[in-house]
């Protein structure tokens, strides 16, 4: 149990550092930036309480905000995505039961489940993020287009990172 807490805290810090120092500087095609730190919300264990989830999401988003000079934008988007995580989980069923000890990761629940799960959560996160960045509804469809393109990019990075950092059981 203790081991798990340490692992999650380490993941929190490392993800923020990777996001802020490395990925925030990509600007692929001008505006595409993988926001991979959201994987922290994706990978929290099933039994995480909803309140804890929200508070962690807020802390994560706010930390990213502090470093990318956009106070509140990432925090709002991350809290939004975290709020809908349990709902998304019950929406997509999997072969395995959601039981304590099972992490919502590719190794535990398979590629197809994880792909669906991450694409929904990341879309929610990115839609809020981009809307807040643009801060007006007048060009809603171009904002939507940006966020969809960026979602694909982020999900690609998330799945790649899963294959790199998790060993097959």
């Amino acid at each position, binding site marked *: 149990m203790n081991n798990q807490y340490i692992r999650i805290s380490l993941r929190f810090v490392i993800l923020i550092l990777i996001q802020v120092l490395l990925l925030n500087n990509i600007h692929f095609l001008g505006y595409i930036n993988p926001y991979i730190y959201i994987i922290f919300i994706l990978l929290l264990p099933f039994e995480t309480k909803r*309140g804890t989830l*929200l*508070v962690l999401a807020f802390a994560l988003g706010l930390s990213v905000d502090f470093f990318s000079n956009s106070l*509140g*934008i990432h*925090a709002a988007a991350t*809290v939004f995505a975290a*709020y809908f995580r349990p709902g998304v989980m019950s929406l997509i069923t999997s072969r395995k039961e959601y039981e304590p000890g099972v992490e919502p990761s590719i190794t535990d629940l398979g590629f197809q489940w994880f792909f669906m799960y991450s694409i929904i959560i990341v879309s929610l996160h990115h839609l809020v993020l981009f809307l807040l960045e643009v*801060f007006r509804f007048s060009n809603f469809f171009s904002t939507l287009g940006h966020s969809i393109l960026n979602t694909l990019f982020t999900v690609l990075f998330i799945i790649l990172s899963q294959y790199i950092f998790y060993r097959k059981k």
Partner: protein
Amino acid sequence: MRNLINFFWRHSIFILFIALEFFSLLLVVNNNSYQKSVAFAWVSEKTGQIQSGYNDFWEYLSLKQANKKLAAENARYRSMLPSAFLITDTLVHYKKDTIYRQQYQMLTAEVISNSTNNPTNFMQLNEGKLQGINKDMAVINSSGVVGIVVNVSQNFSWVMSLLNKETRISARMKKNGQIGTIAWDGGSYRYASLKDIPTHVKVSKGDTIITSGYSHIFPQGEIIGIVSDFSIKPGEHFYDINVKLGVDFNNLSHVYIIRNLLRDEQKKLEEPVK
């Protein structure tokens, strides 16, 4: 009471969610200048709409009174018509107007020297102190703003042209009342630039730019020019607007000089505060 506590307890996650989102939005609006300006524009637009709706409502309620007032005014004007007077002798009626007090007086003059190709352009007029011209009077012609009198001698006056890097004239966009500043950055004598118009304002080609009347020199509503093109530099909060001047400075002969009769009073009012 118990039910209320129960209610809050059951929805505590949702309330936490809303609270965190609200707090984040507050941070966004308070700490990001772009989002701040958009939010401010939105809020002031909405409050303006509410305000004007409220005004319309009260105006509607007081229509009857307004009608009465207008009728009384009409009656008074009718009694001033020549037909209301019986001509008894050859005396002329001389009336001191108490409704419209004259604020601006026009004088005419001719330009006797002028330039358009220096960074600081001036022109000379053929009238001076003896003809009633003083420092800080406005100079216009029939097609727009020309400049400001900066020095006078007995018979001549020296005018700082709008085509002068030092000249700043408070301007207003006619269609939406936005206030900016007209300045000349050198270059073509047909164009000047309009500054300080924030980017949330809608600007389009051909918008008329007029004087704002804030400087106590120019009366309100004198034409300066029209917008010829505009752009926003990335990261800037104000437009770069190019204005095609109404006046052709290379072809200038007759001008009007405007004397603000109330300028001293206006200045004196501001003096103790400055």
